[in-house]
């Protein structure tokens, strides 16, 4: 009897996402679908605005990575304006981007994933939460909060606000960094490094506990896409597009940003508002579920595609990370996103240290001015959760006539579906919906740290509704969680 199981978070905006597990007639998992049922209407909302408004508008899409949207937008606007961004403005943009990586990755690892890692995925849900983690290790809990606060405070210092900083602008940025801010950042860096080192050591010491998770949480061959420096180094703000296959071969070594549509296309499925981007030269397949052009973006992909990090601590960890790959090939399990995130926090802290020690960081020439010199602009960033594309068309007066945003969560859509299918096949027995299964499927999604609901927040709890239907569509089991 074929059955469908729904795992559905219920939030203020109806159904940010739901998960349906489709069983075959033998009661085994056949397929799992991750549905995004909220339409993201920001593109339409932006058409008709003037292009210089876009960095300020698009940052309001998200409360966790507003800096990514602001900077991707500013980069697209830089192209439209056609002027050169002053060197110090570029450095300041990089500074707050690294600060954002610090706060965002800290939130993902310490606050959202660590309860599962440290307390156990099958442990009592009454204690397997952040409060349980705090009770188990209050000192680490305090350090984790201060690490996230450090990133937030840099953003606030530089831009004047911690969220929605209308600071980057076409051609540069609005405000300089001052000596007292440089001094404060320098003073707080040692504690930030220490916190990440503690987390790295804990994770490496405990990796052996997660052998089954490594093998079942998104361990499959795929392509990897992201930005690299012109020299092939790890890059978060600006660079060339690189595509690597599952064997480590470079399909695109360094593609110019404006050529991105040559390699990425988007498929549409009737059951989700989120599109399904794929690597165009390899295609979407014939609809039987196997997608040759499936790729991953984000921390795992970035560490796979780069030749080196370019900073001492991150390079040391990157060498260790690469040992997780089989036979010298790319690291394939999405479970390793956790380690990759910690390495990227180290990388960001090292880059922050370099930037605040740069003698030109407090220069005050921060902006170039111009009008509409190009009618098309694309800005590509590495957001913490993956590659982010902003693409704008304007008329001669600078009014936006077309806006397209391809966000990291969209880029990972195919991979997220494949990951939770693998998890359900490994851990689901019959039609039993256990807390452990729910935790594991949820953890599988969280590995990609998707931005699903942060365009609004939710009041109170987010219960999970789980429903089982038989082949005739009759409800045979229901569970409400939370």
């Amino acid at each position, binding site marked *: 009897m074929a059955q469908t199981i729904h795992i559905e*978070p219920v*939030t*203020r*905006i109806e159904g*940010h*996402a739901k998960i349906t597990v489709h069983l075959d007639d033998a009661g085994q998992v056949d397929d799992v679908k991750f549905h995004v049922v909220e339409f993201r*209407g*920001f593109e*339409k*909302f932006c058409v008709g605005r003037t292009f210089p408004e876009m960095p300020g*508008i698009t940052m*309001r*899409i*998200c*409360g*966790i990575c*507003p800096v990514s949207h602001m900077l991707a937008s500013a980069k697209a606007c830089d192209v439209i304006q056609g002027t050169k961004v002053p060197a110090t403005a570029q450095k300041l943009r990089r500074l707050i981007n690294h600060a954002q990586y610090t*706060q965002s990755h800290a*939130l993902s690892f310490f*606050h*959202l994933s660590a309860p599962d890692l440290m307390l156990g995925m099958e442990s009592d*849900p009454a204690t397997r*939460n*952040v*409060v349980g983690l*705090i*009770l188990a290790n*209050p000192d680490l*809990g*305090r350090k*984790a*909060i*201060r690490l*996230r*606060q450090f990133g*937030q405070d840099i953003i606030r210092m530089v831009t004047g606000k*911690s*969220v*929605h900083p209308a600071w980057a602008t076409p051609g540069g940025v609005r405000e300089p960094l001052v000596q007292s801010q440089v001094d404060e950042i320098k003073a707080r860096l040692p504690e930030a490094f220490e916190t990440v080192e503690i987390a790295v050591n804990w994770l490496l010491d405990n990796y052996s506990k997660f052998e089954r998770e490594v093998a079942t949480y998104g361990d499959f061959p795929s392509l990897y896409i992201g930005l690299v420096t012109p020299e092939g180094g790890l890059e978060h703000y600006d660079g060339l597009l690189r595509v690597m296959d599952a064997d480590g071969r470079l399909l695109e070594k360094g593609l110019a940003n404006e050529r991105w549509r040559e390699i990425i296309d988007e498929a549409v499925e009737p059951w989700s508002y989120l599109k399904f981007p794929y690597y165009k030269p390899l295609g979407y397949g014939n609809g039987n579920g196997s997608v040759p052009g499936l790729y991953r973006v984000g921390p795992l992909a970035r560490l796979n595609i780069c030749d080196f990090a370019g900073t001492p601590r991150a390079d040391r960890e990157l060498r260790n990370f690469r040992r997780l790959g089989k036979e010298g090939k790319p690291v394939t399990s999405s479970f390793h996103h956790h380690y990759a995130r910690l390495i990227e926090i180290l990388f960001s802290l090292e880059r922050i240290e370099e930037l605040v020690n740069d003698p030109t960081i407090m220069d005050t020439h921060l902006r170039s001015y111009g009008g509409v010199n190009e009618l098309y602009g694309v800005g590509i960033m590495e957001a913490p959760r993956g590659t982010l594309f902003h693409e704008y068309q304007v008329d001669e007066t600078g009014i936006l006539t077309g806006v397209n945003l391809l966000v990291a969560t969209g880029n990972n859509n195919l991979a997220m579906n494949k990951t939770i299918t693998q998890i359900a096949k490994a851990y689901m027995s019959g039609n039993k919906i256990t807390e452990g299964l729910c*935790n594991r499927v*949820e953890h599988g*999604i*969280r590995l990609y740290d*998707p*931005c*699903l*609901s*942060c*365009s*609004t*927040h*939710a*009041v*109170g*709890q*987010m*219960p*999970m509704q789980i429903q089982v239907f038989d082949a005739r569509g009759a409800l045979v089991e229901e569970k409400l*969680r*939370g």
Partner: protein
Amino acid sequence: MVLIIAYGNSLRRDDGAGLILGEMLEEAMRGRGLEVELHSLHQLTPDVALTVAADEVAVVIFVDTRVAVLEQGQPALQLAPLTSGQGASSLGHQLGAATIMAYASLLYQKCPPAWLLTVPGVDFDHGEGLSEIAREALQTLPALLAELTPKWPLSNG
């Protein structure tokens, strides 16, 4: 000091009503001669616990939008005491106000009295501006405060 933490997304219509209500409440509290600090946020994240746990914070008022569904009569502002607690897990990045209070209590041994003030919302589409229900509810703030003791929120209303 009265700490007001207002949160929401001003590009999702009524979701931003809490931000407006936070500003109105700040002005009203100052009018009562109270020392007030307003933090306007997109959403609640763990580091907000550090703000709550500051020594100078005497009381915390979280200001948010709630979904006005199945409410009898005209949806209105709602004010209720808030206790610490742990919300259910989610796929998002945000925390609830009760969880923030739990963080402050467990990590910093600080648990100032806390309130949750909510404005009803019915329209969470993309865009700016508020629904009529949210707009009308906001106008009732003076009446709500008038029902409370003059010393609220420093003592129970």
